């Protein structure tokens, strides 16, 4: 048993931390978020150069890490800066290629790791809620390959991706785990139309219509079978990453709150002297430690067997949902009016923490999943 990180991983974490601290002010972040693509291509190129993208993937596909703890340390630092670059989108889509792709397809990851190709996983649909097996998009067999018809929604950075991984059903009913295939789709192909849109917490999503998109056999990821298992596992990686991001954001939010409590006066007294705020602050700290432990549990199981992995991942996401909500609401409340203003950084952390519950399944979705996985 050892809870210390290896030297390599500590260096990785330090590098990400330094980059965020030195180059990623909240003003810049807002500027990037408000741009057309919703992020900075230059920053993305720097991520590639620093090896941060590569740290998301295994050595067999040209990466420099790829374990749960690599994801965790990098995303924790990204969370501290509210980084808007499309790391999460590229991680999840990249993991699908890593897990499911054929040898030639895996070569695509070189360009992803190099920052040249942006990818995203177009999976969620208007009626999916958080159900990973819900795929109504159809892939009909044609002479040359397949024809895709369907509607993908809230696709992370789907409006700036150079390549989409699209899930579509080759057989079965709309909620079946079986029968889902993955396809590499050019977003500029005929029949693909994408509407980009900002998100309430500073990100970007794409709404993607697939209107009889003709694709060849070759763009099917892997051999087309067992794709649900790959989707589940890539989502698990996404959950570890986004939970680490949440942990980073929680720490900054509580640190800002601590500073505020120590300086702001009311009725002639530093408000940090009010016992109610002290206790509520302490309660947040306790829960954040819990999140850190839960993140360790899930990151450590990411490459393990399905049941342990999924139990720990869903446990983590449930806890992050609960604690993120607490920290977001409490930090705003403890700040009072100033915590409600755009100009101040705190509410942006609170917004991100809140909206993380809307990605990869919320607190209720994951408690149900933990129950189902416990019953096994």
């Amino acid at each position, binding site marked *: 048993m050892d809870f210390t990180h290896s030297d390599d991983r500590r260096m990785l974490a330090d590098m990400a931390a330094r980059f965020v601290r030195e180059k990623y002010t909240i003003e810049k972040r807002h500027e990037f978020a408000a741009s057309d693509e919703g992020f900075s291509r230059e920053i993305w190129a720097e991520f590639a150069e620093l090896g941060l993208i590569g740290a998301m993937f295994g050595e067999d596909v040209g990466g420099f890490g790829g374990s749960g703890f690599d994801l965790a340390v990098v995303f924790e630092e990204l969370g501290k800066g509210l980084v808007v670059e499309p790391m999460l989108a590229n991680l999840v889509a990249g993991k699908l290629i890593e897990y499911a792709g054929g040898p030639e397809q895996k070569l695509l990851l070189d360009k992803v790791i190099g920052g040249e190709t942006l990818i995203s996983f177009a999976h969620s649909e208007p009626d999916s809620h958080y159900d990973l097996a*819900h795929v109504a998009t159809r892939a009909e067999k044609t002479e040359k390959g397949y024809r895709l018809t369907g509607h993908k929604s809230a696709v992370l950075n789907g409006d700036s991706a150079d390549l989409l991984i699209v899930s579509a059903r080759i057989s079965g009913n709309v909620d079946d785990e079986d029968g889902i295939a993955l396809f590499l789709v050019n977003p500029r192909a005929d029949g693909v139309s994408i509407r980009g849109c900002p998100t309430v*917490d500073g990100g970007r999503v794409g709404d993607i219509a697939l209107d009889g998109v003709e694709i060849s056999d070759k763009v099917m990821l892997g051999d087309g079978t067992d794709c649900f298992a790959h989707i589940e596992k890539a989502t698990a990686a996404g959950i570890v990453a986004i939970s680490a991001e949440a942990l980073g954001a929680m720490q900054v939010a509580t640190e800002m709150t601590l500073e505020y409590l120590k300086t702001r006066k009311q*009725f002639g007294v530093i408000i940090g002297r009010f016992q109610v705020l002290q206790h509520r602050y302490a309660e947040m700290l306790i829960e954040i430690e819990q999140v850190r432990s839960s993140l360790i549990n899930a990151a450590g199981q990411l490459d393990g067997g399905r049941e342990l992995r999924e139990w720990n991942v869903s446990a983590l996401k449930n806890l992050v949902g609960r604690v993120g909500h607490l920290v977001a609401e409490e930090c705003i409340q403890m700040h009072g*009016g100033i915590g409600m*203003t755009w100009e101040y950084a705190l509410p942006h952390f*609170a917004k991100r923490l809140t909206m993380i519950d809307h990605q990869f399944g919320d607190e209720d979705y994951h408690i149900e999943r933990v129950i189902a996985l416990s019953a096994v």
Partner: protein
Amino acid sequence: MDLNYNEEELAFRKEVQDFLAEKLPKRIADKVKNLQRLTKEDMVEWHGLLNDRGWLASGWPKEHGGADFNAVQKNIFEEEACKAGAPRVVPFGVGMLAPVLMAFGSDAQCAHYLPRILDGTDWWCQGYSEPGAGSDLASLKTSAKREGDHYIVNGQKTWTTLGQHADWIFCLVRTSTEGKPQQGISFLLIDMATPGIEVRPIILLDGEHEVNEIFFDDVKVPVGNLVGEENKGWTYAKYLLTHERTGTAGIGFSTEGLEQLKRIAKLQKKSGRPLAQDPYFAARMAKIEIDLAALRTTNLRVLQDAMSGAASPVDASMMKVKGTVIRQAINDLARRALGPHALPFVSEALDAGYNEPPIGPDYANPIASDYFNNRKLSIFAGSNEIQKNIISKLSGL
């Protein structure tokens, strides 16, 4: 004990319903129901329609042109107005300044200002909070120094809601630094067109411009604009705070919010069936519905006490806390209900005339933003922490 409204009250409710059905412009009601932005013109128009009916100043006595509703009538009106999607009456002139003028202002002030509030000539805003004085109002620093027939006002107010539209501001200003902080405060009326006033927007976390900072740099205010006596402003403000507290529970908003939430939960799907049938989500909704049903009765009990003069300030604080907790919980659930659809947010779609098709369900766009905006409910108008201090103090601690 009788939980039913009497015939008179039922008749009044019918009257309100008929009025709203006939007079409330559908264009405005749609904006309210779809959580879109209201323009100043929308608000002024609605005020005008209410005033034509004699109902703009629901609490004023008839001799000043008010409706003189009792507490139960006010509550019925609020319920029906929320249900119909009527905009909230902007309270600063009608609900906040006017009671102070009637109680402490001169006859001349009443005669001048009250009609102008009713007919929409003057849009008022409130100058209480300052950067260093939020919940601790008495520590305010904006100064008014007497020079001949004028006060020279210097300082800064903040959190001034809808101040960007205002013609006038009523301010608490410091006219003396002697004695306790509360003792040197005066209540002053200031024309926003006076030189030396600058209004700067504060953008809230949801990107909206709803509150402002107002800077006063050697602003000359005629002494005739003082309300009541110099250095007695704190008393008037406290009178107003008590006045302001009735109806802070926002039952009408919560009731409408819950109805909207239920509609959303029927339309959103989870694992192929309506989210409303998901046991966890259904339980979250049911708990709030139970709490709201109880609070609705608590509110009516408090109103009855208020009518018989037996209302306690502890009631107002309790209603504020529980009312805002419930309203925020409804906002929270509406956001949760959307799942991934809570993420996209197109600010322009909040304006009338936006014609692009929605991204996601047509009700989704403003929901998360509204949740964030309404975090203010537990902060403004006396934070819930302050209210709990009051409750425990008045209960004997």
